[in-house]
């Protein structure tokens, strides 16, 4: 049994190895529960809303959104950054915590990684469909072509995004899938129907539990963790370059890379908490995803929340200190202009609210943590909204200053990606083990 000096028992409730398999696979092998059906149905309805919103956008035009001659990006890129940010927790937990041998990650890394993949899928929808001519989206890839010497612009941060996001997605997917192979093999071995035997059999890639397979599994996991680790830092750094390399006051800021990464981890942990608190309750996995896990994650939230808070104050100070009137105005306008309500929502949710986690009670009370995780999600959404919309809506020439209002299509698209996210998550819960059984088995006491 693995004992961490500073931690309590990682798996509680005297679970045996067999219990792990039975508990975790209950949701996969058992009947569909009402709760699951209800949740899935609602998510699916929202997913259909997304399909409608995309159809409307593609067939009618970007004009169906509320963007205008001054604010060309609004909910689309806000949501993109929001979803990409959420993904970061998964990578952090699976890669960095693996390298640091933080065993407590074992109960939560599977679902965190799944969340990463679903979040990146949701994120990818926005930069794709915010294009006026999405059917030509492949032009942003450096593909050999018949158009003559046409090539992509390697100066453009948007192109860097393309590489960053696609790398991130493929590495995360591989990592997640690799971790799943032993567990899929377990399901295969226990499967009763021919279909699931065949499907799980196919995806288990001939896993037989031999030392050789285990050995390779461990090595590849370590290599992938090594590759993923810089991605945790690089992806959001590159996303922040979209703004940092521009000339728009409020965007043109060197603090963005670290500030975005901290924000991403902050929001990612927020979303992991939201999902896990629901999952552990519904799937009766409180013994595996323990209050200790929640406690550890809230500490990360408090730390990263304070980091972004510091960044907010720093950029405000630097703007005033710079003596550049456009910068000064951009930040004063955030705090006092027409979108001040968004700014103060962000400040409260991201800087003030997480400070409650200084108190032990708030770190160990699941319902409270759940509420706080929602607050964090809201705060981080508004952070991106504030950065994107309030910077654009009043930039250099006052003649072009406008207000921005989202349309129904835009709102539907956002709700729709939430639908997509949860649909994926519900399918994941139903068809794959949400806890890495193979790894968790290594940290429980199976002796009498």
């Amino acid at each position, binding site marked *: 049994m693995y004992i961490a000096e500073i931690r309590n028992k990682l798996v509680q409730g005297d679970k045996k190895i067999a219990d792990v398999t039975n508990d975790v696979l209950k949701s996969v092998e058992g009947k569909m529960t009402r709760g699951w059906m209800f949740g899935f149905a609602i998510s699916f309805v929202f997913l259909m809303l997304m399909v409608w919103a995309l159809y409307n956008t593609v067939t009618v*035009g970007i004009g169906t959104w509320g963007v*205008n001659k001054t604010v*060309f990006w609004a909910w689309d890129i806000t949501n993109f950054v929001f979803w990409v940010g959420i993904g970061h927790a998964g990578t952090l937990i699976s890669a960095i915590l693996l390298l640091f041998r933080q065993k407590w990650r074992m109960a939560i890394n599977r679902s965190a990684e799944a969340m990463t993949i679903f979040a990146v899928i949701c994120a990818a929808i926005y930069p794709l469909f915010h294009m*006026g001519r999405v059917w030509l989206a492949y032009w942003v890839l450096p593909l050999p072509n018949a158009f003559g010497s*046409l090539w992509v612009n390697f100066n453009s941060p948007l192109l860097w995004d393309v590489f960053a996001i696609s790398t991130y997605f493929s590495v995360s997917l591989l990592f997640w899938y690799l971790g799943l192979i032993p567990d899929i093999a377990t399901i295969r071995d226990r499967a009763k129907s021919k279909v699931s035997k065949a499907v799980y059999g196919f995806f288990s890639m001939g896993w037989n539990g031999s030392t050789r397979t285990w050995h390779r599994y461990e090595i590849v996991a370590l290599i992938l963790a090594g590759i993923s680790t810089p991605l945790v830092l690089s992806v959001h750094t590159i996303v922040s370059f979209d703004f940092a390399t521009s*000339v728009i006051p409020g965007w043109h800021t060197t603090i963005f890379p670290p500030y975005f990464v901290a924000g991403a981890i902050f929001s990612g942990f927020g979303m992991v908490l939201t999902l896990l608190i629901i999952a552990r309750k519904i799937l009766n996995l409180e013994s595996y995803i323990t209050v200790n896990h929640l406690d550890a994650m809230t500490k990360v939230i408090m730390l990263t929340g304070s980091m972004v808070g510091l960044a907010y104050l720093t950029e405000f100070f630097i703007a005033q200190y710079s003596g550049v009137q456009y910068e000064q105005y951009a930040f004063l306008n955030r705090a006092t202009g027409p979108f001040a309500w968004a700014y103060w929502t962000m400040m409260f949710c991201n800087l003030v609210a997480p400070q409650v986690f200084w108190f032990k009670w708030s770190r160990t009370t699941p319902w409270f943590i759940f509420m706080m995780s929602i607050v964090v999600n809201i705060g981080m959404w508004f952070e991106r909204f504030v950065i994107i919309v309030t910077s654009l809506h009043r930039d*250099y020439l006052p*003649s072009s200053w406008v207000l921005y209002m989202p349309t129904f299509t835009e709102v539907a698209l956002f709700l729709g990606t939430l639908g997509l996210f949860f649909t994926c998550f519900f399918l994941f819960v139903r068809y794959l083990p949400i806890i890495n059984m193979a790894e968790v088995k290594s940290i429980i006491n199976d002796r009498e």
Partner: protein
Amino acid sequence: MSLLSNKMGMKQQYWKGIEELENSAEFQKDKQNEFFEGLPLEQAIDEGQSLNTNRRDFLKIFGFSLGAVTLAACNKAPIKYAVPYVEKPEQITPSSALYYASAVLVNNQVIPAIVKTREGRPIKFEPNKNTQLVSGNLLAHAHSSLLSLYDINRIENPLERISNKLVSTSWEKVDAKIIKGLNEAANTGKKIVVLTNTDNSTLHAKALEVLKQKYANVEHVVFDAISYEGILEANEKSFGKRVIPNYKFSKAEVIASFNCDFLGTWLESNKYAEDYAKHKTPDRKGHMNQHFQFESNLSMTGSNADYRLPIKSSREGLHLIKLHNEIAKLAGWKQLPIKDELEVAGGMIKNSASALWKNKGKSLVVSGSNDVSNQILVNAINNMLGNYGKTIDLTNHSNFTKYDSNKFHQLVDEINGEKVGALIVQNANPTYANIKGYDFTKLLAKVNLKVAINTHLDETNTNFDFVCPDNHYLESWNVYEPMNKSYVFLQPTISRVFNTRQAYETLLSWSGEDVSEKNGFTKSYLDLKKYWIKSDFNQAIERGFLENEAKSIPMSFSVNYEKEAQKIANRVKINDNGLELNLYQKVGPRDGCDAPTPWLHETPDPVSKICWDNYVTISKMLAEEKSISNGDVLKVSSGKKSVKLPAYVQPGQTNGTIGIALGYGRNLTTKTQNDLNNLGENLYPFVGVSNNSENYTILNVQIEKTGKTQKLAQTQTHHSIEARDIVREASIGEYKKDPKVRNEHKHNLVSLWRDHDYSEGHHWAMAIDLNKCNGCHACVVSCSIENNVPIVGKDEIIRRREMTWLRIDRYYSFASGEEYLTEEKKIDKTSKTNKTQSHYENVRVAYQPMLCQHCDNAPCETVCPVLATTHSSEGLNQMTYNRCVGTKYCANNCPYKVRRFNWFKYYDNDKFDFYFNNDLGKMVINPDVTVRSRGVMEKCSFCVQRIQETKLTAKRESRKLKSNEVQTACAQTCPTGAIVFGDLNDKNSEISKLYKDERSYHALEELDVKPSIMYMTKIRNVEENKKDQHHG
């Protein structure tokens, strides 16, 4: 030499032919003939055609005719596809443009213009810059007027009323019935009245002469929607000449203007704008003109004034009296014995009086009032200043309007008395511009025959018996006399689009003349050529105009203006605190009587920046008092009349006054479903009649909030410049001390980028003089038509998605004590403490045309992932529409926000049912410019198609490009010459010189994006030193 015969002493108004003037023996002989012109019969014989047809020929002709008719009866195949010419017309080379000198006819004005045609389609108007007297400057409404040619709402066939519906029929049927009707009217002894708007066509006059000869009791009555009778009457009383004088703003060093929007909508503003700008820029000695404006609405003209005093229009007369007395004091003339109790802030009347007096003979006082007494007083002041013959010319007078309201009201009385048997209405639209609230439905029922000649159906002619479609002016031959003895020619630049007939021919045919084409020449052409023997006809047509400036004859000023001043003093009650309404025209739709074209309405008002609707401009004080905010729908009522319109808090609006634009509320039935139907409210019924002429100031109106709101389609909603160094301005005193004022400080900038190498070839650049730009928006429409910019309509503008590549930014600064506030926070703070909101009344305005700056270090170029926007070797920032995937990143990263995105498909889309949505409308599309598809970014290209075309021409001719040979659409059309485009590598070009001018600067220079556009500091002719607002 005169074409008019008034010299002869004969009381004859119109020429009958040059022969009559010369009164030769031959003419005397011909005059004896009953058919002076000769019968068409004889012409036919002259041309050697036998009228005697023998039996065999008859059968041949019969057979041919039958065949022809059968073929013609087969439905005409719709021409949908571009097919190459089977036989190519001699001059037309596909893909190269042909230019014709012709004219634009818009809102009563004839403006000489060059019409650019491609493959037989007129696609653009360009100003005719060769004129001296009659201005060829094209303003926004003139450019927009081109669209009326390709308007699917034009009448396609002659219409006849059958069972209370207008149905298409043939010209023969219509002519026969109308002639019968006219004869009936003549036989019953009733009058035949031809009601037109002011039409200076000499051909038209000729046709009326013929009609008068044919029928007894023919009368011609003129009706114009907007009356300038005050000026006409005043000049008649003062000088015995009922004319609009030729105002020479180019010679005026000091201008005092009372409620007169002479740069925007007043009379021949296209000419005044150019003349005014000639001295608007200080010369080396710091000499420039000075402009005082006294007005109640903030007009475009007022926004350009050096000093502006908000006054109540109703008190204009008192201000004039005061001005008169102040000047009289200086001149040692007799003062008017009227006690002026008027308090004038800052002694502006006194200051203007001394400035005017110092520049006597080089000054000008104008008034936009239609009140005879006011205008007589203006004449008296100008007379005292010795301006007649210098800045005001009555000899080479303008023929802008010939409206005589008495005659019109008399006509109404006659119709009421059933004395009119037939009414022919050509273009005039009294039902819409209904100033006295006549019930035309009832009135017209008393006329047996009602015939209209027009290109469109309007409020008046929809109820008529016959509607005869007129040719569009671009399909017609004609000659106009816009100024005394100066002529402008109209030649067709397209063959008739519909089954229409020129009004001249229509009127002639009703006089029984044969108007059919002869050898492919229309009657109008043949007659024009026949009567025109003044100079070489071909040369005149080629030039498009013929000007004769006579030496100005001094006129004696003789009127008892003291009496008029007394009239004013009696009429105006100083203590009258009622709310007054001032009706005005907007630079787009103006009087509103022309067929509405979309660019008229998509073009924002230069001052309020509101498009499409009309609205109530209210002062801030009134807004605070009644807690009205922008968009609140107000009920404005005067007596029994009332309208409901949204409110707009207009800085510069005089407290106690409101303003509403005329020219809206048209009631049209159209084939298109777009915002042009039902725009705003018609305010013509509000126009009062006082002192015998129309009065556009209505006293004691009531307003109340209806509780509803309506969104205003405004292209700019933030009005203060926030103390930013974007528009630089200085006073003349500062400029005299240092011509580099505001530009002395240069940023020390370091660039990461390597500079572009322009040492070879061309380097295109632009300079925009903020002193000359008056905000008229002519460039905006010219650019939009040249570059196929789509119309997006009211809703899309409310969503802030207008597509114009060029916009005019307008910034107010608000006077508070000694300083001018430009920051929102300070303005709002002052609004809270200042009860009278005087800072809102006293504003200064600056205009800045804003378009793609073609930066050398363009922020847009680096961020495009697919290289759709790149830099050319000639300094252009190019947009490759084909390559654009529409990420919009470039537009976000543009500090000037000049990029425009195609949010929708703007062509072939019923949601945007403007001219891009029908085949006829699409004929105006410039084939050299791509029509952008949905989802791509677009922006100003510096008219790259023009650059390429000119370069290719030069290459073909093996020569270098001449300086100024390439002109962008905006630079070409700017009436004041504020925009200059050219090649910086050409050291002799104007642009090279302007780049070295002390006033030149780049907007947002400190970003080091290195724009290719230079702005030139605005210098105001005011005595004060403004604090340097530069951020350092």
